[in-house]
């Protein structure tokens, strides 16, 4: 495991082409460090500081033909228990209550033995693939033939804060750009009226470390995630102040335009000033289009039923899943939806009563998730939309405390799944040991997941890089990582 290596050491090997500090404006930032010469030449707008602005989120060509155009990452914050959901371990039922030797590492530190807590739900086989799924996910179970399961993921930290950063940004140290930032940096956005990286949080609050989980880190802020609220004003500052009509605001913008034109007059050809003028029109367009994107009024009843929108338990997550689909339809590249927020049992962090916790969170999300997969499929969108399910780690097979069913964190082995976007459904990669305590066959570092996502989006994970502080940074780090071939 790479914990043996320092974690922020990603040294460049190639001379960067352009540099932010070189004063090329942020057009060049958007391009710096993408190393493929041909790709680079095609994208280059003269980094001379005078060429009119190119939006950093303007669409860019991928490295090769992409399988997926969009990503929906359903983030089960807190760490769902793999052995109670998608990683069937029949032996565990038998061992329930027995103390067995097993190495674990969670928030309570490292242990060498523990009392087994048997899975609290029954598993059944589903689909042509015969995939085992627990009773927590009866709806998702009906989609297993479209899903590829990764049973042998491992991460570098079993602590929420750093593990969240690992899953979102590839490093357990903070300050690095997130997956969604990388995708938008690499590909730009096809819809300039909506942000390219959208995050929807749980109603109980954000995850630990807050905005670090959707930051663009050392990249310009244009690549950071935008919080989208499922109800009310969808994007911060999108709506004109109370009492100001759109028409009145249009008058303000027209007057502003006239002042700015007069200012520009004596400073002709200044791209910064022109860019700022243009940004007001882009902002105005966003105001026109974003509210429509989040308005569910036009969704027919059968769609509402499919997601469980009218059911109290599932309504919240259903709304977010429908929004995710609508955003995909409008070309938003990367959408992250959180199940769980805040701390403790507000998310999947089942340290206390495992059954209560997982029944609650799975019950809130199972139908909406299945609804999303089916809806995307019916609309022919699933093959170009990569859906990812999982948390920052899994949970231990043993109890955390002397009594009770609570499980501590487990980063040694856990399950995530992918569907759509060119992923081979009904497949399984890797295994954990018979207790589910750690990955044994085909262990997959989280970076392999990241490499797979970038690869499906048409980006070479080992080539997509960004120059910063003397180094070429990559999402997959200096050692690189290969996509998971078995599921492609």
């Amino acid at each position, binding site marked *: 495991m790479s*914990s*043996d*290596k*320092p*974690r922020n*050491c990603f040294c460049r*090997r190639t001379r960067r*082409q352009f*540099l932010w*500090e*070189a*004063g090329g404006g*942020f057009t060049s930032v958007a391009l710096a460090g993408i*190393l493929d*010469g041909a790709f680079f030449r095609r994208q280059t707008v003269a980094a001379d*500081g005078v060429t009119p602005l190119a939006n950093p989120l303007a669409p860019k060509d991928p490295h090769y033909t992409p399988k997926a155009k969009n990503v929906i990452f359903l983030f089960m914050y807190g760490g769902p228990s793999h052995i109670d959901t998608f990683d069937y371990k029949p032996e565990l039922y038998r061992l329930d209550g027995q103390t067995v030797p097993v190495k674990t590492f969670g*928030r309570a530190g490292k242990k060498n033995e523990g009392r087994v807590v048997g899975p609290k739900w029954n598993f059944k086989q589903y689909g042509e693939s015969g995939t085992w799924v627990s009773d927590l996910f009866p709806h998702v179970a009906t989609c297993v033939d479209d899903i590829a399961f990764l049973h042998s993921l491992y991460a570098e*930290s079993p*602590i929420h*804060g750093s593990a969240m950063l690992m899953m979102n940004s590839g490093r357990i*140290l*903070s*300050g690095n750009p997130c997956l969604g930032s990388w995708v938008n940096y690499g590909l730009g956005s096809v819809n300039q009226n909506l942000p390219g990286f959208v995050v929807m*949080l749980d109603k109980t*609050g*954000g995850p630990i*470390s*807050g*905005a670090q989980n959707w930051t663009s880190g050392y990249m*310009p*802020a244009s690549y950071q995630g935008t*919080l989208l*609220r499922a109800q009310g*004003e969808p994007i*911060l*500052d999108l*709506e*004109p*102040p109370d*009492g100001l*009509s759109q028409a*009145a605001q249009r*008058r*303000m913008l027209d*007057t*502003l335009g006239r002042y*700015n034109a*007069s*200012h520009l007059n004596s400073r002709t050809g200044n791209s*910064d*000033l022109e860019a700022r003028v243009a*940004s*007001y029109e882009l*902002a105005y367009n*966003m105001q026109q289009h974003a509210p429509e994107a989040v308005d569910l009024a036009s969704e027919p009843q059968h769609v509402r039923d499919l997601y469980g929108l009218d059911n109290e338990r599932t309504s919240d997550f259903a709304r977010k899943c429908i929004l995710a689909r609508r955003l995909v339809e409008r070309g938003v590249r990367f959408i992250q939806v959180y199940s769980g*927020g*805040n701390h403790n049992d507000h998310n999947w962090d089942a340290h206390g009563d495992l059954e209560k916790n997982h029944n609650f969170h799975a019950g809130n999300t199972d139908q909406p998730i299945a609804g999303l997969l089916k809806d995307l499929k019916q609309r022919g969108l699933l093959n170009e939309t990569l859906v990812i399910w999982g948390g920052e780690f899994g949970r231990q097979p043993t109890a955390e405390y002397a009594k009770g069913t609570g499980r501590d964190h487990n980063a040694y082995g856990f399950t995530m799944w992918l569907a759509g976007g060119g992923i081979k459904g009904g497949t399984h990669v890797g295994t954990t040991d018979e207790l589910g305590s750690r990955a044994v066959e085909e262990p997959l570092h989280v970076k392999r997941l990241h490499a797979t996502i970038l690869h499906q989006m048409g980006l070479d994970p080992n*080539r997509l890089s960004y120059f910063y502080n*003397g*180094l070429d940074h990559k999402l997959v780090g200096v050692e690189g990582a290969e996509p998971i071939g078995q599921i492609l």
Partner: protein
Amino acid sequence: MALFVVLLNSGYRATAQAVPKPSEEEIAFYVEKVQPIFERHCYKCHGPEEEAQSEFRISSRDALLAGGELGPVVDFDDPDDSQLLRALRYEDLEMPPAGRLGDREIEAVAQWVEMGAPFPAAVGEGGGSGAQSYWAYQKIERPEPPRVDDAAWITNPIDAFILARLEAADLKPASQADKQTLVRRIYYDLTGLPPTPEQVREFLVDPSPDAYARLVDRLLDSPHYGERWGRHWLDVVRFAETNGYERDNAKPSAWRYRDYVIGAFNDDKPFDRFVLEQLAGDELEDAGAETIVATGYYRLGLWDDEPVDADQAYYDSLDDVVSTTGQAFLGMTIGCARCHDHKIDPLPQSDYYSLLAFFNNTYKDIKQLEFEKTAFTLNTLVTIASFEQLVQRQIQERKLAAELEQVNAQVAEYEERIYAALTNPEKEDAQDEEVRRHLLEQRRGDVLAADELQLYLAALEHRHTLEKKKLPPLPQALAIKENGREAPPTHVLTRGSVHAPAEEVQPAFPAVLGFELPEIPEPAADAKSCGRRLELARWLVHPDNPLTARVLANRLWQHHFGRGIVRTPNDFGKFGERPTHPQLLDWLAAETIARGWRLKSMHRLIMLSSAYRMASVGDQEGYDADPRNDLFGRFDLRRLAAEEIRDSVLAASGALNLKVGGPSVFPPIPAEILAGASRPEAAWNLSAPEDQVRRSVYTFVKRSLPEPVLQTFDLADNGSSCAVRFNTTVPTQSLTMLNGEFFVREAERFARRLEEEVGHDPAAQVERALWLLLCRSATEGDIDRGVELIENLQREEALSAADALKYFCLMAFNLNEFVYVD
């Protein structure tokens, strides 16, 4: 540039084998055209690292000649027949095995072999002598200002360096900016605040030739100078007031470091002293509260209180200090040498650990928290009370004790009498104070007379008050604390892993700079630290150190002109940009040292130059010939920094509170932003109204929750040292300025201010508003446009006069002319 290349090559000594020395162009060809091909297609097996799979490694010209199992891979007598090329062409070996390269790629490699396979000088392969001659490592010699044709343009030597280059390119400098432009430029430059209309007028009507120089001096004396220039330094030292990570706990008293920096700039503290205090304020002979606070420098970075691997995390913390120190003072990206030798600069891995050894006694003061087995706290607060404060404290404590003694005696006297008058069961009950009071009330006059009872109760109250009285805490600072006089040994860590220590190293300066090993004096028997940091700090500011003064001079220039002479102020190495005016940089560096490292004197020098006073609009010829303004033929217009935007809006609305210093404040932030925190209810501790409108530099810097207005306008990323902020223009900024809470609230306040100051006439309101925002009198057209908007909003959109004015104000905050400075 030509001169520069000569300078470089003249120092390059050929090695024994008389290898032809590669030219800059040849190296560039390799780095840009050939190396990327190798990297992508060959490095996996033939990379330069020692752990490469194949015996043949593409690491140097010598390595190519040595080749692998099949002998040399290049043949300089018949380059086209080199095995390397035959393999790439699939003529015998087929490399890379994954697929033949494109013809153009093969052609690039062929061209390069034809050149003699030039490689950039790398560490430890005979390139050392070349490395030592690298421009940034040369001793700083003060160059003679060059001759120029237009001597009249020269105000001071800076201008000679600028003009000579322009003349050589057949270009003319832009005309000098008018006073109206200059006054706004220098107020923002030195204080980050706009001049008031009165300040503008005062300057414009002052006909004396030294009016400008006097204004510069006055602004340098302003307490707001330190707030602006101190902020530049806070970017470089990754200033923040929380640790980051899961808990993102506050760094207590970090604001004192911020105030120290602001104060150091305001006091014109010599920069060499500034360095000594930050790096070794506790080891100085005259150490005191101020120099202790300065060592907060070490504690500003990200710090994980619950690391997965505590031993490795210890080195992550040290890496934060090594990397920051390398970049902030030396312009060296030495952090890149943590796992292996630096890829391009002559910094072997051992240099990294030798530098780390200076600090390897500073992060042991971490304490495991009791409540969770994996969490730590950094026990790093130091009391910084002065002797007087300590004496004062003792006096207060004694006074309190004496008072308490007195009242205790009083109470005891009464109680003796009380208990004497009570029955036994009553005595027992009366143990409880409440019951006792009740009893005495009931039997008023019986046990104690009414007036005595009052006195007794008052004494009790007094005792309670005294017991609860706490003396205010003594001031504490986030500071360095070492683990005693002996530093632990420092080892090179193989591939940066704490679990793979290699040879031991001693504290030493980067070898390429050619300094003797530091002599660290034996620390006194009762020393609290090992004394290493002081030696490092002394070396940094030694006049022979080639980097510190250059890096500093470049930062000064950067913030006056919008970009450094070296455009990468934290990287003077080969990945960085070359200086556009190397001689000017050296002259400025030499001058900085000669002027006792006093920055105010340098500001004055730079700001009085003709170069600084150029207009932002030049002639078309200049734009065409030098679009990037490499030659400084005109003054680059700049967007206000995040803090300047927020402060200027507050200044316009009249709300700005100019109080200097003190604990950080929490201005209101939108509920939607708070919702993103994992504990929204506890995330932000809103300040009192007067503190909500303090200057932005006093806003609490929380790593997981940056103040949103500031963040929108490209606040420095505080994960590591930030030399140059981004300057983005994106639609979300426009949304924030049009619709955001802060701007709408201040527009309303601004409108009220205008009504108070000039009444209800729209023309007067518009004129006054534009004066306050743009620091100039409005033209007729300006006024007409504004009045038209106000009238239309009322007539066509049915807004009240007050609202129409408010939205005019909001519109005006969005003006390009407001947000940019010429």
